[in-house]
């Protein structure tokens, strides 16, 4: 569930100064979460040991072992992590410390760990690491610490010691193949409703449902039909202006998000991704274009296919940023008037470190905005939003801790002096909205499509 509880968290702390605000909160205190507190009561030592043994011997191999053997405990990865930087360089938040407090112990004690240990491990692996992989760019050996923490998550998933909100999201995936318990009828109904909405803005705008043989299948994440349905109609308008032959599925497989990937339920992750690509096969599309979401890109482009053993997506997968870039670069869509307000951008980890789309994103930003103010550090080196990796899906109990863990992000945005933050990712979007209200940044968060729809040139025959 993408929760929108930022404003509540902000009210709890009234101090406007970013510095002092972050300092006041001692996040180490354990938050109450039935996914951790209750589940550990059901575990037996044998169960814990056998699950750990299974994961360490059957489900992992070279990477885990070599990474553990190679790490020289040099602490150079600390610099990478926004949680460490945001918490005034608290050493317990350095990437290697997160591994030390989880995997090192698990391996050292050969799986003989107790419920309290697992609860703490769960807090660390799920709520203090966004598996953003910035640290693997800072470790001189390129040790993939995010991978190590995902191994911890896998163990915790098999023991069901997962923050309750995140687990519920995974359960939704398992049942509905989407992230937010969206029922089959609700999905189709929403698309039909959004088609109508689009038509109020643009003549002939359509959302062709289940159209076999279309060039493009457009897939989104479940928060779109559930709470941000207008985004679907924006895309309908963009597709209409661009003259694309596109479709959206009327069956499961429309949701490209994947929180099971982050909770460690790889079987469900694989099932969801299989459904996504099978739907593309069924519709005979030449490519999949997906909405503005980063983790969904990761799930659909890498983690899902990897588990299903596709080396790359079996149907080309185009992230919205790349799609917009192509439309603007080729002049398929022209800009009538640029967006006037000072605007900055969030580089979503999973499409920037995950697909190198940073430069294309900047092309799009410059094409759309009169006053684009870049962030620093940027591109691959940008800070994570601390909402991705399943962290925001851990729900309201953890919001405050996440906010404190991302002070650097707030400072980074503040330094740009922009009024608008563009986030081509749903997790970034929700997380940064919370951040803006928590740190009282007075900024607004938008998706690219919102600006594109406002600024694009609409041909005369499509005007209503």
């Amino acid at each position, binding site marked *: 569930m993408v929760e929108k509880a930022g404003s509540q968290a902000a009210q709890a702390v009234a101090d406007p100064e970013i510095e002092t605000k972050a300092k006041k909160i001692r996040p180490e205190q354990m938050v109450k979460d039935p996914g951790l507190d209750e589940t550990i009561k059901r575990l037996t030592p044998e169960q814990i040991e056998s699950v750990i043994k299974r994961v360490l011997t059957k*489900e992992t191999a070279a990477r885990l072992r070599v990474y553990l053997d190679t790490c020289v405990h040099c602490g150079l990865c600390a610099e990478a992590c926004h949680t460490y930087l945001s918490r005034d360089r608290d050493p317990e938040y350095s990437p290697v410390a997160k591994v030390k407090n989880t995997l090192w112990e698990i391996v050292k004690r050969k799986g003989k760990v107790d419920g309290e240990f697992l609860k703490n491990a769960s807090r660390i692996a799920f709520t203090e690491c966004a598996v953003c992989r910035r640290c693997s760019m800072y470790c001189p050996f390129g040790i993939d610490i995010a991978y190590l923490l995902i191994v911890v998550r896998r163990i915790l998933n098999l023991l069901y010691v997962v923050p309750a909100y995140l687990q519920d999201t995974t359960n939704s995936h398992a049942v509905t193949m989407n992230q937010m318990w969206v029922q089959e009828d609700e999905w189709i109904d929403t698309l039909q409703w959004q088609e109508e909405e689009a038509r109020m803005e643009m003549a002939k705008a359509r959302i062709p449902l289940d159209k076999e043989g*279309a060039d493009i299948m457009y897939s989104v994440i479940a928060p779109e039909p559930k709470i941000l349905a207008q985004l679907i109609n924006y895309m309908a308008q963009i597709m209409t202006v661009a003259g694309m032959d596109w479709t959206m599925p009327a069956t499961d497989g429309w949701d490209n998000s994947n929180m099971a990937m982050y909770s460690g*339920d790889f079987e469900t992750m694989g099932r969801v991704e299989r459904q996504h690509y099978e739907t593309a096969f069924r519709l005979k599309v030449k490519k999949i274009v997906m909405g503005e979401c980063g983790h969904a890109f990761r799930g659909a482009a890498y983690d899902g296919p990897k588990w299903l053993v596709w080396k790359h997506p079996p149907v080309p997968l185009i992230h919205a940023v790349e799609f917009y870039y192509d439309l603007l670069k080729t002049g398929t869509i022209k800009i009538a008037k640029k967006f006037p307000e000072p605007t900055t951008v969030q580089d979503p980890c999973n499409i920037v470190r995950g697909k190198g789309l940073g430069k294309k994103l900047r092309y799009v930003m410059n094409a759309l905005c009169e006053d684009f103010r870049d962030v620093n550090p940027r591109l691959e080196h940008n800070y994570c939003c601390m909402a991705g990796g399943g962290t925001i899906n851990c729900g309201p109990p953890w919001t405050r801790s996440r906010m404190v863990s991302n002070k650097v992000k707030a400072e980074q945005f503040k330094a740009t002096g922009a009024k608008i933050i563009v986030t081509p990712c749903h997790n970034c979007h929700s997380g940064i909205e919370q951040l803006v209200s928590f740190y009282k940044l007075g900024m607004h968060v938008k998706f690219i499509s919102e600006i594109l729809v406002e600024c694009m040139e609409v041909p005369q025959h499509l005007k209503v």
Partner: protein
Amino acid sequence: MDDLMETLGAIKTTVAVNSASVGDTWDWETAEKRIADLLEIRGRFAEVHEVTVSADGEKIAAPVKTDDGNFTACVNGEVWPEMFELLWYLKFSPDGKLTALTKSDDQWTIAVDGECWEEKFEYIWNTQFSADGKVIAAQAKREMDYLIVVNGAVWSNIFVSTRGLAVSNDGRKVAAVVQAVPLKEADIFGFLEGTWTLAVNDKKWDRNFINVYRPTISPDGRHVAAEVRLDICEYTVATDGEPWQQRFGCVWEPLFRGNQSLLAPVRVDGNWTLAENGRLIWKGAYNQLWYQRFSPDGSRIAAVVSPAFGKWTIAVDDKLWKKTYNDAVLEPFFSPDGRRVAAIVKDQNRWTIAVDGIPWTETFDMVWNPVFSPDGNDVIAKVNKNGRFTIALNGRAWRRDFEAVWEPVFSPDGTKVLVKAVEDGKYYRRVVPIQELMG
């Protein structure tokens, strides 16, 4: 013209026609029939949506929107008399009836050849047919209750939710994946107790599972099976509510071979293999295995497998095709005599078909399922290249191409092919001698 292309883009037959057994009663004599002038139809309405063609090619239909903003279906140029607020999901049943999901006065139902079912719903979707087209089933919702509707009659059981529907070949069994127990919001413990089951002909299985996926029905319609999830990471297959004794790390959809034997891909120690009624029957341990299919007499098994990370091929009776493909291999099809196997394969983003392990040399922007001739010697498929559609025979595209084509069907004697195509905005049903396709 672009608009026309958009309309023609959607190409749909209601049943996959992949063997020569269908079509005995169809017209295989008339060489060419001009069924409808799509340009003319387009001119008559404010909007014409995606077109659909019946299996025998005799009818072409599309949802149309009239100038006053109402919807109806237009079949071979004739409109249904009734008008609707919305009409979509046009599907021809295998026996040629045209069905649509329709909305009037904010109520949804199914219209069959223009006649609406009496029962109306808050929503209705996923029209499914028996093989003979006599049974039409769908999922529906009314006041937050989820329902199954069969030929217009609603099951007495109501559900918290439904997902997935299967109709047996003879239409006597309808199975639906249903949520039997309500779940409080974010109740992660209740979820593990099991809230899902299968309902068959309005009767639920005795037992609930954490999840139930992809039901399948035996050819004689007596047994229903599905994937079931028993624990966080423990899966198996259940037949008529009884799970297999054996448990697996994961399973994919089962399929009946004959009426007693049930086969499913299962994951053991991180690798996939094939199990029959719970017992492992293939020695191969694959990175992936799915789409197990059987020769018509059930003696041979083909499946899509991955022998190495990122490499895909077909295994027939646990023996691999030599060549592997990097992008994907789709479901295998046996020839009617069970001798040969063909499948869609994709490499470097180019699609083609491989028959008995040997890929066609020509590649395409898209290919549709391979269709064997009755004697198994020829394979044809609909293909798309450079924006045009045609039929390829044994790897060679026909010299003629079209704005749109539907999947081809062999005549029962195998000498002719039914080609349903749009040319210059007009829809033609043609019966083409096989020699002609070679030219």
